[in-house]
């Protein structure tokens, strides 16, 4: 098995009790597990496989197929930057560049202080406010490189106090 079997697997009990025997629930179970752990640790995937009667390969296959699932932990705040068509046309690339420079990370990485992770997505459905990003639950529209950096700095300031 893996060398990182440290997760508290009892946190899965409730989820598995509700869904493990319901056909076709693998994605739902992984979504709920990710809500609990923040990501999908390998030992959690093994536990889900065992409880649902799937092979670990099938569970891993699903977990790696969908972009929503993460196999590594994320920072405190998740920045989802839209790079959909409307946002592309309205300058999402420049916004991405500014965020990457500010946080010194690339798409998919987490800043050194563990505060922010950046993930680019294709369309948040707020295209008329493009370019758009979502930080955790909040959506920010009509971004410019400067505005995006300002928003991030404000969150960082709040975290410092």
């Amino acid at each position, binding site marked *: 098995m893996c060398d990182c079997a440290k997760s508290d697997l009892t946190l899965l009990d409730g989820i598995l009790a509700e869904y493990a025997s319901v056909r*076709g629930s693998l994605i739902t179970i992984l979504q709920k597990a990710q809500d609990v752990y923040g990501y999908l640790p390998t030992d959690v995937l093994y536990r889900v496989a065992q409880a649902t009667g799937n092979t670990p390969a099938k569970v891993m296959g699903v977990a790696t197929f969908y972009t*929503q699932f993460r196999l590594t932990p994320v920072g405190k705040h998740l920045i989802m930057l839209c790079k959909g*068509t409307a946002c592309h046309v309205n300058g999402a690339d420049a916004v991405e560049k500014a965020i990457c420079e500010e946080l010194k990370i690339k798409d998919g990485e987490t800043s050194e202080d563990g505060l922010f992770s950046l993930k680019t*997505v*294709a*369309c948040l459905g707020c295209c*008329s406010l493009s370019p758009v990003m979502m930080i955790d639950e909040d959506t920010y529209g009509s971004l410019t490189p400067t505005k995006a950096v300002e928003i991030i700095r404000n969150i960082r300031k709040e975290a410092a106090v």
Partner: protein
Amino acid sequence: MRIVIGEGSCGIAAGAQKVYDALAPLLENTGARLGITGCIGMCFLEPIVDIYEKGLLLKRLVRVTPDDAAAIADAVKSDDLSPLDRLAITDEDKSFLDRQTRIALRHCGVIDPEDLNAYLDVDGYKALDKVLHTMSQDDVIAEIKTSGLAGRGGAGFPTWFKWNAAKNAAGDEKYLICNADEGDPGAFMDRAVIESDPHLLIEGMLIAAYAIGAKEAFVYVRAEYPLAIVRLQKAIADATAKGYLGDNILGTDFCCRLRIKAGAGAFVCGEETALIESLEGSRGMPRLKPPFPAEKGYENKPSNINNVETFANVSWIILNGGEAFAAMGTETSKGTKVFALTGKIKRGGLVEIPMGLTLRDVIFNIGGGIRENKRFKAVQLGGPSGGCIPEALLDTVIDYKALSATGAIMGSGGMVVMDETTCMVNMARFFLDFTTKESCGKCVHCRIGTKRMYEILTRITEGEGRPGDIELLEELCDAIRSGALCGLGQTAPNPVLTTIKYFRDEYEAHINEKRCPAGECAALRTYTINKDACRGCTLCAKKCPVGAITGAVKEPHAIDADKCIKCGQCKTVCRFGAVEVR
């Protein structure tokens, strides 16, 4: 008086909830009621506050900020709304809505999406009542056939035909599925319908479930739409509690359960067979068709899949008759279509128009044309499966056949407008970047073919294009189109083919002259300083990361083209507009 704030996702992103929170305490004990509605569709004016008296819209306030709350409360209290005129919508902007014909969106931005009674007040669930008490399964299908309703998810397949096939398929256990994956980036019609009028979707689905004989239904919603999921959950709970959903609906034998399944982020899951795989909890890899879902769908049982907007038209057709629906549109395309108008457009938002208007009508008449009075270059329809239509074809009518003839497709309704600053080669590259990432990898043509195309397009935009690249792209397009397993691969060449067809000169400029006519491709840009505009403030020289800019204080500066890495920082910092890009 009733004060209503538009709270769709985009309204909230623009600050609608903050306006609500600021207004709520001020309106206490004034007799005025504060409420919410969904997406009004005028995203360019959000946040929007409507003031109603006895069901009549007295004033529509736009771009409202929390700072305006006091003025609004004062006006409401004194019963004199004239001080709010500065916030009122202009006649020009009003025409954005007045020029539309709304069927699928008819309650969007009008009713409270979280209130079942609000839906009942606008004849909600009357169509279901009519169907269950007076119509047979075949009657329903015949009415839909008369209407000419075609699938709004992209392909435009006749809805009645699919329902009929599912109804006639052998077996008792059948499933109805709503495709709310809305994967086309730049499209948000389905999100708006679910967030603004969830019961309309439920009612349309129930009628379809009755027609095909399904007792189980699913809505597959993409993960990026949390608000849509919350509102739909509430609507399902409310409808179940009131007997519109569940067992013995409206006192009849008809029973139907509706469940939400949240997607997990995969574009290909919008394709119907991949969606079914995903519903079953597997990787969303498409299946070979036939067998079609009508025979072997979810759990290998007969299933019918329709798009959100398709279902949103159903109750109107039942109440008003298929003929009334068919009276709108063209010979081959009936009814209305919703578009999400975005990009470099002045007035962006949701537009529902009868089929048969032209692209020009939508973009210039309703959308107000291009921002900053730049020049229109192209409009992108149908997302990664669609294409770019140039100015010369702006008078193309909106109709499945006419749009397909251009090389684009009607698609699900994303309409992204581009101006002269958008590079069409880079646009094609953008879509291929998308399809390579979203290709599920099952078939070789799509998995490897799109990757090769992406590499070629990338090298062209980076100034490394070679003679023969255009022909190579065309050859690849041909092979992928005929060899790919599912719609994703088969249509992936469309953005490339249409841009080559209509903007070949841009490709040639990149390849032969190493020039990007739109000035978007960084590697092909040259930065120079206009000597007359430069004041010699030295800011750009200080900012330049590679020391490519030289010049004495108060003397015009110059950029060494050999050192320049084209990062554009000098242009950003220059306060005199002296840095020019070509």
